[in-house]
Each structure stands twice: as C-alpha cells, then as structure tokens.
C-alpha cells in the first residue's frame, strides 16, 4: 500500500513540482514575458472557477470553450470513423482495393492539418465545415490502417472454422471477421481521437472559431499570455482524459 502511494501519487506530484519550478525559473530569468505560475493562476482564476460564464463571443469560461471544441472534435471524429472503418475493412479484405488505394492512403497520411484547412475553406466556403473536414481527414488514418492490419492478421484458425462450415459471406463477416478485428479497430479509434484533438487547435487557430484553440490564438493577439498557458493546460488535460476514456473502451473490447 505504501509503495502504491509513493509510485502513484508522490512521484507524479514530484514530477509536476519540478516542471512548475522550471517554469517559474524560466519566467523569472530568460523569458520575462512568460507569466509565472502564480500570475497565470491570478489571471485565469475566473475562467476556471466559473467555467461556463459568457461575456461575449470571444470571452467565455474555459469549460464553455472546451465544450465548443469537444463538439467540433466529436463531429470530425465520428465522420472519421464513419469513413475510415469501411475503408479499413475494404483494404484488409480486398486485394484489388488494397492495390488501388493503399498507395493513396500512404500518400495522404502524412499531410498536415495545416495543409488541408485552406482546401477545406475553398471547398466549403465556411469555417465550421472546413474545420470538421480537416479533423476528419487527418484523424481517420489510424482507424483505416489499424482496421486493415486487423483484418489481415485474423488467425487462419478462425477463418478455417468459417470455411469448414461454409458460412455465407455476410455471416463470415459478422460472426468471424468483424469480431476478430474489433480490438484493432478500437486501437485505431483511440489513436484517431488523439489526432482529432491534436488537429482541433490548429484548425480553430486558423479559422478563428470559438473554442479552446481559437481562444488561445485570440489571447496571443491580445497579449494576454496567461490565457495561452491556460488554454495549453486545458488542451492537455482534455486530451489526457479522452485518451483514458478510449483506453477503457478499448480494454473492454480486448477482453473478448
């Protein structure tokens, strides 16, 4: 019990204390414009303690801003899964499809969200759908690739059961291929969600839509640097929570 307390609570707190110390030192010495931890807290207090206040479009509690971002990420994420999962299955199941589209997947995968966003604006003419388009396009690759790998690594044992029983194509899919692939698919979903959250900041910064990323960029332009740190910390905390949440879902699937 004592060891657990040390390893799970005291040591992580020690790590956090080190970072805070380094932050204080940096703000006191080489970067005088960087607000110290104490000043950050002073200037951000209201945003955290009243997370849902709204004084205007661009001055809102951090909870409200995070909510906007989460809804946007949610839409993009769902779109990414809706497109990415079937593509992944097709890549894994069909050799001609794989040969036709795998090079394109490999080609599009490394393209940065910053590159897609202007194209999204050109296509949709509005910032909101452009942001969702960018999130979906960037976030779907782990889902696509993990699903395809999952399908291809289904044990021959399971496939042989289906072959001996001469299962129809649809039963083969629902009873064997999909359940056998599910753990891989959910690993893909977890990675995709992480990417979607990573992309949100960039897309909000560029489109100026209200949300954590938009707020961060606006406060940079208004020289309220403490709020940049507030935004960064919020982004980190939410990203961490999302990953944990998807990790739980993933673990449930893996138990099978």
């Amino acid at each position, binding site marked *: 019990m004592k060891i657990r307390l040390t390893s799970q609570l005291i040591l992580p707190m020690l790590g956090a204390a080190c970072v805070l110390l380094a932050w204080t030192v940096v703000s006191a010495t080489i970067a005088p414009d960087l607000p110290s931890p104490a000043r950050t807290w002073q200037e951000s207090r209201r945003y955290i303690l009243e997370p849902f206040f709204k004084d205007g479009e661009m001055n809102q509690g951090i909870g409200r801003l995070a909510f906007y971002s989460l809804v946007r990420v949610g839409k993009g994420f769902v779109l990414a899964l809706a497109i990415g999962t079937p593509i992944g299955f097709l890549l894994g199941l069909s050799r001609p499809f794989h040969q036709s589209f795998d090079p394109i997947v490999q080609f599009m995968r490394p393209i940065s969200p910053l590159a897609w966003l202007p194209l999204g604006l050109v296509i949709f003419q509005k910032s909101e759908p452009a942001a969702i388009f960018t999130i979906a396009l960037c976030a779907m690759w782990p889902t696509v690739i993990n699903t395809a790998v999952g399908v291809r690594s289904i044990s021959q044992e399971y496939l*042989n059961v289906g072959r001996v*029983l001469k299962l129809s194509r649809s039963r083969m899919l629902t009873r064997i291929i999909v359940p056998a692939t599910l753990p891989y698919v959910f690993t893909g979903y977890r990675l995709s969600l992480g990417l979607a959250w990573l992309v949100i900041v960039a897309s909000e910064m560029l489109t100026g839509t209200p949300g954590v990323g938009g707020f961060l960029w606006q406060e940079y332009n208004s020289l309220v640097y403490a709020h940049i740190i507030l935004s960064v910390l919020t982004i980190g905390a939410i990203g961490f929570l999302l990953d944990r949440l998807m990790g739980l879902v993933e673990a449930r699937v893996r138990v*099978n």
Partner: protein
Amino acid sequence: MAYVEVRGLRKAYVTPRGRTPVLGGIDLSLDEGEFVAVVGYSGSGKTTLVSLLGGLIAPDGGDIRLDGVPVTGPGPERGIVFQHYSLLPWLSVRDNVALAVDAVNPGLSAAERRRITDEFIALVNLTPAAWKRPRELSGGMRQRVAVARGLAMRPKLLLMDEPFSALDALTRATLQDELLRIWGERRSTVILITNDVDEAILLADRIYPMTPGPDAVLGPAIEVGLPRPRQRRHMSLEPAYQKARRALVDFLRSSVSEREAATTEGGPRQMRPGSGTPGSPMEV
C-alpha cells in the same frame, strides 16, 4: 468402393529454402461407421493429412472420395476437431456450437436448431457452462466444446487432429472415455490423428501407422481385435491389446530405423529445416 477412399495423396510445401515433401502417397479407406486412427511421430505430416482430408489445402496429387463424391474443398460434411480447439473467443459455448448447427441446417426452424444445439452441449456435459466464453473454460472443457461443435455438424466424416494432445494426462483420459461413450452411442465415421499409441488402441477399430516424414506414407492397417463396448480398466492386460500395441510399435520403430539407415548409407544427406527431423525420437 469404401465410404472414405483416399488414394495416392501427395503434398509438398514449397518455401524459399526449398521443397519439403511431406506426404508421399497416402492410401486409406474406411467403411461407414468405422473409427480409424492414424498414429505417427510428431512432425511426420499428420496435420497436413487432416488439412487435406478437410479440404483446407489442395493436394499435389492423388484423390479423396467421401461417399463416392470427390473432395475439392472444405465443407461441413467433413467436420474437423482442431488440435487447438479453434473456438471463437467472442462467442459463448452455446453460440460456438449454434454457429455450426445453424450453418448446416438452414432449412430447420429456429426452435429445432436450438434443440439440436442443446442436445450436443448436453452430450459433452457442458450444459451448466453453456453461456460461458471459451476463456472461462479449462483446456478439457474447451476441447469438449470443439468436439460438440464437430459432432453437431452431423458430418459424414469427423476428422480429429490430435484433439487431446494439449491436455494433461488425467483430463486426456477423461475425454478419451467420453469420446468412447459418445461414439458408442452414435457410431459416426471418424478419423483420429494422434501420436498416442494407447489412445489409438482404446478408441479405434483399425489403426494406420504413419512413417516419419519427409514423404510419409501409411503402413499396413492394424486391426484392433478388442470387443466393444470397451473399458479402459484391464484393457492393457488383454492379448488383443498387447498384439495391436506390439504390431504398431514394431512398425513405427522399424520405420524410423530404416529411415536412419537410408540417411547414413546415402552419405551426407542434407537435413531440411522445419521438415521434422526424421528419427529423432530414437536418437534420444
């Protein structure tokens, strides 16, 4: 023509490192309702034989006929009980068996299919565990599910690929006894592949010894003269048991010695990697 007729079955695996001839002309025949065992050393190509009979892989030569019909691919009329159970881990015991029953009997009503599923789960004494997932079961229970699934397909021929080899000795004996009982009740046509001489004698009507690979073939069939129903107890004292055992062991030993003699006579013969070192049991 016999119910199951296998003639000149050959199979080699081609890998980047060379060609490995596994089976060099297997001949085998069974009558309906007969229980036949194939006994051979590990690595002699027994699993390859099951895969060929099951139609999961295609032979290089020879043919297989079941009830007069040539075997060209896998199908539910040849049920397979796999060595590593091959249960679907995301389905319950019941659903694993039901998958087979539903696939084989599309014409029956749902209630009737359910009745058949329950019947075969009861046959292997797993009714209390019907809703468990395979991972919640012991190895012996898992193999029972696999046996139930194989039987529930009501195949013309049931293939069993070393079904009990992964189990501990006590569980193995229990499952052998159960298989003996079930077979006594239903008289299915069975080919059991095993490396356990006593298991083969206990269960089979007739035993084919298999020479060690590469190019494995089957030796002359040995009839097991033991009357049925059989009991494990005292069986080893019966002359018929001892006769069958001696014939089997003598053939297997001499086939290994011949193989070794051929190897030394032929000068430095290259051993193929992964083909199962011929004769290794005797060298120990």
